[in-house]
Each structure stands twice: as C-alpha cells, then as structure tokens.
C-alpha cells in the first residue's frame, strides 16, 4: 500500500514535470491515466449534464496544459486539478448568467477532494445496480467482480461469448442512464 502510494507520487511528479517542460509523452501519460477520472468528476459536479461536463472537461484540460507546474505527488496534483475544475465551472456559470451562491462555493470547496468524488460516484453506481434485474446484476458481478472470462460465463448461460458481450453492453447502457438520472438530484449549488 505504502509502496503503491510512493509509485503513484513518483508517477505524478514525472508527468507534471514532463508536461511543464512541454513533453508530449508526459501529456499522453497524463491523458491516459487521468482523463476518465477528470470527466467523471465534472459529470458529478454538473449533475449528470454530459454536454456541460464535456465542455468543462475541455476548458479544464486546456488550462492544465497552460498552467501545470511540477507537483509533489498524487494528492497535490488532484487537489490542484479539482481546484481548477471548480474555478472553471464557477467562471462558466458566471459567464452564462447563472447565480453562484458564495456559501455553495465554499461548501463545495470544503467537500471536494480526490477521495470523496470517487466515493460519491461509487455510491451512485452501487445504488443504480440495485435497479437492475437480478440476472443482470449477476452478469456484472461475474464479469467485473469475479473476473470470470466471458467464454466461461457464456458456457454457464448456455450462450455465446458474443451474445454475452452484447448483453453486457445493454446492461451498461441501462446502468449509465440510471446513474445520470440519479446525478440530476445531486446538489452542487
């Protein structure tokens, strides 16, 4: 655990220093490892508004490229990135004539951190899974949490691997829709 944290710190020190020097390979590593998490975070903060989350993701990413400085480690990097997300979103809301309550901003700043953003999404994921049919949940459990190969699942279901994959895609779409619906009730401001 300790070693993993040290490795992560080293990774973030390297990619932030590399990007600050303008190295493209560092940008690619940052993108591969952070993009999805960044988007998820903004999806949460925009209450599941995919279009807005995408727009904000692009604005944040451009600012990351422009202003990134070498960071001490993973926590420092994500703290800076989330601060940047908040700043970009508040600017966007003001630019678009939305009222931003100061107490809401303060609340958000206190709440937002690397851990609780993911934890909140995991809670939404688990809650959304409860809305699935039992056989759908079982399929996800086998594939994602038991790491059973799709071929083995197909044999168990007396089906084909391709049919299982199609079924999995449909389940994920359903799950995604439920999560986005749930996020609409998420209070940000």
């Amino acid at each position, binding site marked *: 655990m300790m070693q993993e944290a040290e490795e992560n710190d080293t990774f973030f020190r390297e990619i932030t220093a590399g*990007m*600050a*020097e*303008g*190295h*493209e390979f560092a*940008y690619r590593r940052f*993108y591969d490892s952070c*993009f*999805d998490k960044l*988007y*998820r975070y903004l*999806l949460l903060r925009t209450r599941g508004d*995919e279009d807005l989350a*995408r727009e904000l*993701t*692009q604005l944040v*990413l*451009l600012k*990351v*490229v*422009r202003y990134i400085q070498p960071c001490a480690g993973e926590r420092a990097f994500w703290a800076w990135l989330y601060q940047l997300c908040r700043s970009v979103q508040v600017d966007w809301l003001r630019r678009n004539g939305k009222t931003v309550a100061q107490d809401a901003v303060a609340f958000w700043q206190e709440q937002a951190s690397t851990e609780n953003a*993911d934890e909140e*999404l*995991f809670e939404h*994921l*688990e809650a959304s899974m409860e809305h699935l049919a039992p056989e759908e949940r079982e399929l*996800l459990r086998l594939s*994602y*949490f038991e790491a059973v190969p799709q071929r083995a699942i197909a044999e168990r279901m007396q089906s084909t691997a391709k049919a299982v994959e199609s079924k999995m*895609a449909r389940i*994920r*779409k359903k*799950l*995604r829709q439920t*999560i986005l619906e749930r996020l609409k009730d998420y209070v940000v401001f």
Partner: protein
Amino acid sequence: MSSSDKNRLLNETLRESRQYEAFRNAIFQAGLTELRKTRPTARSWTPWALAASLLVGIGVGIWGMTRKSEHPQVVIASSVDSFVSRPLSAGDVVRSTADDRLLVQTERAHGAVEVVTTEHVPLTELDDRELLSVFGKKPAGFVQNNGHLQFMVLGN
C-alpha cells in the same frame, strides 16, 4: 467488490456512449495542440539554437577577416626555404624575384665558425732488434686501462 473493480465498471459504464471515444480523441488533440503552442520543448528550440550558432560563427568569421585586412600582420614562415646560389662574398646582397621586399645581406661570420688546423708530426719506427734491445728479456704487452690501450713492460 474492490475499488479497482468498481472503477473499471464505472469507467466502462460511463463510456458506453457512441460519441464518447470521439469526444475523448477530440479533447486529446485540442490539448496536444495547446501543449505544442504554449510549451515548446527544448527539442523544438534545437534547430533555432543551431541556426543562431551558425549565424554567430559566420559573423565572427567575417569580422575576423575584416580585422585582418585592416591590420596587416607579420607572416611567420613555418618552414625554412633554401636557395642555391653562386658562392657569395661578404657584402653581397641577394634580392628575391618573387617578393622584392625580401632582401638577404651576406657578411663574414664572427666567431661562429671554428677553424681547425693540423700539422705534420714525424714518427720514428723501430725494427725488431731495436725493440728487443729496449725490452731485454722482460715480459711486455698491451693493457687496456679505462678504454685506453697502454703498452707495459714488466720487471725491474
């Protein structure tokens, strides 16, 4: 249910959209373009640095050549030229046809040349009888002493 499993499921669930990959790639390209524009790497400066070095080198070269032409300097020959001439007497002046500024004046050498003279010394040769009368019946022979050959007669 580990957090890495949940993370994978969450990622794949949220990416379950036709436009997601296109959006992801578009943003990647936008960021890359911005990176190239705002943070040029040391590597991209290299051609400019080389070009600047070349220009400075050419400039210094031209400046040096100009300086040289403004201030003629004494050229020191790196080798000795030899000429064959008729025997010269003291006081002769030799002029170069290739460079009329080059003049050589001859004069008698003072002290640099050592004159060695020899003179004839007559030798007296002894015959066997005379030699025997010199040594008598005493043993005699040549002995090398410190590299010098000496003739020695032993006895009283």
